């Protein structure tokens, strides 16, 4: 079981959280091409290693925040607010 540090509630069990996928994706403008929209909606780096991702403390405070987590070791490298820029 992962222990995830919620920025509001501190260290809690993984089962209280839900992962919301890759952080810092920028929504394209409506005038953009299908190619750009396809990239935004579906294509991902899916890195083996450090991954910036959004999590929600869904069974706790309900707030979103960002993690940088290693997808091989699951070690959490940093935690920061949902509106902060990537570290």
């Amino acid at each position, binding site marked *: *079981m992962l222990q995830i540090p919620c920025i509001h509630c501190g260290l809690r069990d*993984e089962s209280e959280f839900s992962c919301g996928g890759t952080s810092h994706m920028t929504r394209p403008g409506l005038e953009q091409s299908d190619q750009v929209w396809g990239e935004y909606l579906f294509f991902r780096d899916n890195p083996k290693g450090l991954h910036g991702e959004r999590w929600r403390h869904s069974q706790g405070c309900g707030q979103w925040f960002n993690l940088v987590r290693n997808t091989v070791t699951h070690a959490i490298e940093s935690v920061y607010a949902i509106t902060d820029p990537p570290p």
Partner: protein
Amino acid sequence: MKYSAWQLLRGALSGQRHWPQAWRDASPKSRYDIIIVGGGGHGLASAYYLAKNHGITNVAVLERGWIGGGNTGRNTSIVRSNYLFPESARLYDFSLQLYEGLSQALNFNIMLSQRGLVMLAHSRHDLDAMSRWANAMRMNGIAAEILTRDEVGALAPALDLSPQARLPVLGGFAQRRAGTARHDAVAWGYARAASALGVDIIQNCEVVDFIKERGRVVGVNTSRGRIEAERVGIAAAGHSSVLAKLAGFRLPVTSYALQAMVSEPIKPVLDTVILSPGTGAYVSQSDKGEIVMGAMLDLFPSYAQRGSFAVKQAIIAATLELFPCFSRLNLMRQWAGIVDVVHDSSPIIGATPIPNLFINCGWGTGGFKAIPVGGWTLAHVLATGQNHPLAEAFQLERFVTGRLVDEAAASGIAH
């Protein structure tokens, strides 16, 4: 050597010491017509069908570890074709048809056991959804039977069918042709048959880079040196994105851990496969007697090949609600495979943005059942440069055009 009863009999007189190596553990040559990256079921099947269907035998399968050591050895070994949409039904049913003839075709007993698959309905909504599903299968020419609760009970008497059950069983549907196959035998059967036709199976050979000339792939650099090829196919499941990055493109894939586990072996108690989409439980009994339990993904990206305890607990809880009689069993082994999940839970089989480079990925949680058709269709596009008709709907472009084959809600497991 052709495996036969006669060979067994002959071996009985000589202590069974006459069996040759099943396949050649080859060393890489400097050049091949076609290289397949990934020595799991899909990669080995691709190599076999290149040789068998297209007569292309100057082929290498490059495997980072040992063959069948990835997801081919990390699944619940269930085969079925109970999909909703015509494109998927055609694809997966062709796979099941190939499985039905595979032991003969490969001269290797893959231990296919068509013990049937029963989907459980736990609510009125489930009953309606399953009627639609079973009828969609019939429309696609795949036999499905809608079952009452008593009929489910007759097929799986160990289920808790009491009205007090927390997850009451109201009915369901069955695909009788579904079942299980021996996963190692599928990998080894394809490896042996491909090797006999001249394919080089090269283990401990990790691709570290793609060699390109004027934007076209002309070979790969590996941990065992440079290997050139006319065309390269990738069949690397959860590691597809890693290889795509080396080649210089991205995929609509996210890698997750999918775990499963087995109990200690017990006497025969369950002779069909039980799937409960409402809870995510996926239960069968192996030929050795173990209760095999699979379930939902660990829902965060992972390359770790191990599952989370929280999900393990949920799998076991769901299984025990259905089968309270399993509560005293000890768990014997658990494992997780890294699966390549695509938004619509349908595969990608065809060209990549890089000329001469082709891919078979995106099977997500359902790659094992698709091994024969994945190999058949990747071999086709590698050999001819044209998509196989069965793979036409499963191209990378669909994520730009929006023409998804959205089995995500239909393929039986929530993911």
